[in-house]
């Protein structure tokens, strides 16, 4: 069936060439904690155990995503360091490999549900579908966003599982299967599931997506006969996750709702907004408007109710219509049915009730596969049934538009300043886009200053640009801690004459009294503490006021307590007081490894070797996965540098 391998190779090479301008791009956003700022990824590749700790060094998910992290460790070992080029190039190869699997999956799907077509026709349609997926400009923010290798790898293994299932199931539908064959394929699938889940947790969707293929394509057919039991079993398992989720929502709603404490929207608001977001994604997939795309979409209007904005109700009604259409015509249009369920199930984790951020383009990497397979098949069907649409022209048009859009977007992603400038231009209301723009401009200015070129007009312009974007951020949200902190920092260090006009610190203090802290605010506060620690933000005593305010409102926040601990170090409080605070934090949150680490440093600095050993013992005891082991070993290797090691 897969007779178009040379054409596939041409396609893969073309995609690689189109992505080339983007490979020189920077590390961004979450790349920091996961890759560039991850101390476990700066390791000695000659020691086996350092690979293990590097592989388990991600704090992003409950399973720590070891397979993805292991590939980053591989990049580090090969390039003797973390370089954007090495990592993005690897991401590109994974993208191409995924494309190959999309081609195989599409081939298997068309082979079963478009069986009247010739092998060559099916293969061409599969190639077209794979081409659309590979060339989709929406995937640039996955492929060129280093840390999204996690999403890529999970997609790779999920696709592998789906390919295995669809080929085996096609065979079984026609000829039935032996127990041996079924067990063997179950073992293969479990292997794919294992690899997918340990790349990123939403690899678990493989199980649900298999059911999607079963109910939409194979529909209970086994050995050439229709099996009602199998069909109903398929529908039951399709609904099972929904039933389980409903059970969880009814019996332990706090498990879902708890995460919304650090969000500026509720669970209902998120679910309503996602109704619109899912249509938005779909639009970007089919009509790639690169001016609407972007790295950050925090400017999206949150749906506060069904009619605020009114498009929420329209989006909801449209989804209802799609589902009704699915139920009525599922047998007549199996490709449409497959694409619909594949897309919705693919988004079910990240675009539903869980307290994640609202919009990220990389969430479409897997769900889009069904859409593009259906689109490829549908366009081939249309051009077959209505010859007025010449197939070559239609295919050429799609490929050309996608390719140009991809090239432009990859080019934008090839330079930090360009990327952020385009993001700000596309999303002027996005605070984060302004923030990253300001940060990048400031970075360029600092680099120019370090090389003695700060007097140049372009450098000065960048400094002014940075401040301007921060002002815009502040105007958009006067309580934005990131904006307030950065403006305070800039006026302290670059525009001292402006300090007389606005007291940013006072505004920061006011904001800390009322603002609902979000995940990103903790980053800003940590940066603020670091700024005082580096003596770049003035007298450290001021910091205490903000932390006191926040701790009044969030008395059990371990992160805030740890910031207070660092603050006490800055104002030279007694060691006993600091150690007492650490003990309080430990009592509040037993098992927090960071607290043990701080205790080790604090007790070592206090000359309390017994306490240091006890703290190390506690860390060993609490660190069940032994993730900190290599750090501990280094610490004993050079005990004089305990503080710097940790």
């Amino acid at each position, binding site marked *: 069936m897969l007779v178009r391998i040379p054409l596939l190779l041409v396609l893969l090479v073309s995609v690689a060439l189109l992505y080339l301008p983007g490979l020189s791009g920077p590390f961004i956003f979450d790349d920091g904690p996961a890759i560039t700022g991850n101390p476990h990824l700066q390791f000695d590749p000659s*020691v*086996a*155990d350092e*690979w*293990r700790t590097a592989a388990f060094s991600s704090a992003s998910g409950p399973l720590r995503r070891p397979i993805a992290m292991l590939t980053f460790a591989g990049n580090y070992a090969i390039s003797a360091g973390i370089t954007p080029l090495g990592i993005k190039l690897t991401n590109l190869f994974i993208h191409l490999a995924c494309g190959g699997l999309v081609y195989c999956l599409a081939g298997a799907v068309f082979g079963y549900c478009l069986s009247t077509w010739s092998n060559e026709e099916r293969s061409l349609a599969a190639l077209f579908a794979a081409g659309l997926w590979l060339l989709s400009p929406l995937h640039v923010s996955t492929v060129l966003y280093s840390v999204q290798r996690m999403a890529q790898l999970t997609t790779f293994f999920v696709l592998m599982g789906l390919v295995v299932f669809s080929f085996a199931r096609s065979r079984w539908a026609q000829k039935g299967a*032996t*127990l*041996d*064959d079924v*067990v*063997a394929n179950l*073992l*293969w699938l*479990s*292997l794919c599931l*294992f690899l997918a889940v340990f790349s990123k947790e939403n690899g678990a969707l493989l199980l649900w997506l298999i059911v999607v293929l079963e109910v939409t394509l194979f529909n209970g057919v086994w050995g050439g006969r229709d099996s009602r039991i199998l069909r109903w079993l398929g529908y039951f398992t399709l609904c099972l996750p929904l039933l389980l989720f409903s059970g969880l929502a009814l019996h332990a709603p706090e498990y879902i709702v708890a995460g919304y404490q650090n969000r500026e929207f509720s669970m209902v608001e998120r679910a309503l907004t996602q109704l619109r977001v899912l249509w938005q994604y779909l639009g970007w997939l089919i009509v790639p408007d690169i001016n609407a795309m972007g790295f950050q979409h925090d400017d999206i209007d949150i749906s506060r109710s069904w009619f605020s904005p009114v498009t929420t109700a329209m989006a909801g009604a449209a989804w209802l219509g799609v589902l009704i259409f699915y139920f009525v015509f599922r047998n007549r249009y199996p490709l449409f049915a497959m694409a619909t369920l594949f897309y919705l199930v693919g988004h079910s984790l990240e675009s539903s009730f869980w307290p994640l951020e609202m919009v990220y383009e990389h969430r479409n990497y897997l769900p889009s596969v069904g859409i593009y397979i259906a689109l490829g098949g549908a366009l081939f069907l249309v051009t077959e049934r209505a010859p007025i649409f010449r197939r070559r022209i239609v295919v050429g048009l799609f490929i050309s538009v996608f390719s140009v859009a991809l090239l432009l977007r990859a080019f934008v992603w090839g330079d930090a300043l360009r990327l952020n400038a385009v993001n700000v231009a596309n999303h002027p209301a996005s605070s984060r886009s302004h923030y990253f723009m300001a940060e990048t401009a400031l970075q360029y200015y600092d680099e120019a200053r370090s090389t003695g070129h700060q007097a140049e007009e372009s450098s000065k312009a960048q400094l002014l640009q940075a401040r301007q974007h921060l002002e815009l951020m502040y105007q958009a949200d006067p309580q934005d801690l990131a904006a307030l902190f950065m403006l305070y920092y800039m006026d302290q260090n670059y525009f001292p004459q402006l300090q007389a006009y606005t007291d940013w610190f006072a505004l920061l203090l006011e904001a800390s009294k009322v603002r609902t802290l979000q995940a990103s605010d903790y980053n800003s506060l940590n940066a603020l503490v670091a700024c005082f620690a580096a003596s770049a933000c003035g007298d450290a005593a001021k910091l205490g006021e903000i932390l006191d305010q926040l701790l009044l409102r969030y008395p059990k926040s371990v992160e805030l307590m740890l910031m207070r601990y660092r603050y006490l170090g800055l104002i030279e409080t007694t060691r006993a007081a600091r150690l007492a605070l650490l003990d309080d934090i430990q009592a509040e949150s037993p098992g927090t490894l960071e607290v043990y680490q701080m205790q080790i440093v604090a007790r070592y600095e206090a000359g309390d*070797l*017994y306490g240091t*050993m*006890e703290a*190390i*013992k506690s860390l*060993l*005891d609490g660190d*069940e996965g*032994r993730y900190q*082991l*290599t750090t*501990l*070993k280094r610490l*004993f*290797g050079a005990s004089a540098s305990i503080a710097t090691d940790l």
Partner: protein
Amino acid sequence: MYLRLSGPLFLSLLLLFAGWVYWPGIQGPSLLDDMSSLDVLERLEEAPDQAWEFINGNKSGVLGRRIPMASFVLERLWGDGSVETTKRVNIAIHLFNGVLVYWLFRLLLTFCPGERDSWSLPFLCTAIWLLAPLQVSTVLYQVQRMAMLAATFSLLSVIAYLYWRRSIVAGNVRWVFFGLALLAGVMGLLSKENAVTVVPLLLITEIYWLQFQSKSESVGLALKRLAFGLTVGGGLLVLWLLISRWGALEQMHELRDFTLKERILTQLIVLWDYVRQFFIPDVSRLGLYHDDVWVPSMFWRQIETVVAGIAWVSAISLCLLALRWPVARRLAFGPLFFLVGHSLESTVWPLELYFEHRNYLPSVGLAMFFLSMLYMVQSQWRATIRPLKCWTLIYCLWLAMLTTSQVTIWSNQNLLALQHVVGHPESARANRDLAHRMAELGVVDGALDYSKRAYLAAKLHKAASDEHYGDFVLRNIALACIAGKPLSQLEFRDLGSVHANRPLGDIATMKVVVDLYYAERCPEFQWNLFAGHLQGLYLLEFDASLASARMFSALAALANALERWEDAYGYTARSLKLNPDDVQSMLMQLHFSSILNKGSEVSELKNRLLALKEKDKLSRSEEDTLAFYTES
């Protein structure tokens, strides 16, 4: 061609990988029995001509464990004599054993019908054995080279036997292989006595795996009769010995804090724990010290004992039942190999209750069970074998990952001491070890705290020998000295306040104290006051029941160091009263008598020693010492 090359190629890669995983472990410390068995070798540098004596001088087993001792001696003579070198050699032996395990598995499969893919299954099962975290405490524990070499020769013996059997199957009998099997068996015995299990191992290999295959029917029948005859006969002999010597065995357990019955009941649980720790390791519990293991005293009172007992009875019954079916026999072979491998150290002998290194050879049986399972799947359900192999590979990588973390811990003395206490907070030995580490780091309060925990833990667990209060105080003296903050008279005068009829029991600690004096590590300690305190405890009356002969010798050594000749003479006199023929004590007494001008006693001792010399009962170094007195 591909099949012929891929086996060795993948095996080489596996060995490289295993070596890489284990390599950081060479930085690890000397442990527990390393000191008593290997520290004597430090004298080898002064007297290399006495190498043969060092080889023959090990007292650990009845046969002297000459081969591992020879390897340690050669390592000292030719190498740098460092712990690192010893551990490097251990790792190399482990890798070599990996090759033997692979070789054994491949050979075993050649006796199975229809075997085509002959390298991948042995490769995967060897990887399981080679990378299991349970092996770390054998490979990185220097003195366990004895167990490793015993396994090496046992494996070689089984391999040679299989070659001999193959020649029988081919109709061209090669007795040289049989001879090699015997030779390897003897070499195994000279490595460690438990290599004696190779005999029953060969029998079960014949009965359960080879199943008397032969070109000629009569030879097959003869093999069958011989194997069953030896097995049944051997079994009955062991049974008779057990019944007739039960009382003696019980008596031997009086040296321990647990009875024979308690040991057997504990082993029922411990053996399952070994199986679990091999296949699904809980690395937090892995380590050297298991003296906190729970000791059941009644079979029916604890559910764990009942379940473990029933499970073992069922497993053994199934193994016996398996004799009826050829395929089932091969499945039963691995578990039986494991049990037979444990038949010496995990049964009735009064050894300590739990040591991971006891699994080094028996665990080959567990890997073999995996092999036979995979082989069965391959024969019956061919399509499933490929994904199963992939899963097995992932399993091996998981084991390797756990092993790397274990090796990291074993590569650092402080980490190892801390981890032992984390994994076994109630282990007296682990707490003692951490106390020692704390002392080495100069943390006296931590050292004394963990020393106390060790003392209390020893009271709590039967698996840990009950500790004399005096030993606890003596250890505190040593720890405080090591930490550089010696105890005052007020603190050590407690020694002897409890169990005055036997104030001290642990010779090792006393030796440490003597070494500390010689090393001048504790100049501020009131040594003479301490020696006076000991004199008050031991020498006021001539009571030889206050200590063992070795303890009196150790006390004499301390008195000697402090030049308290009268005390030293008194201690040695008591030692000789308990052990009149001990050459070392006689030499010591000769020394003290000479200093104290006890002429008649000097002559008597010289005569006795010269008589022993004439009977060739003195070692070279003892002869040299005696010559010093006779010539002067």
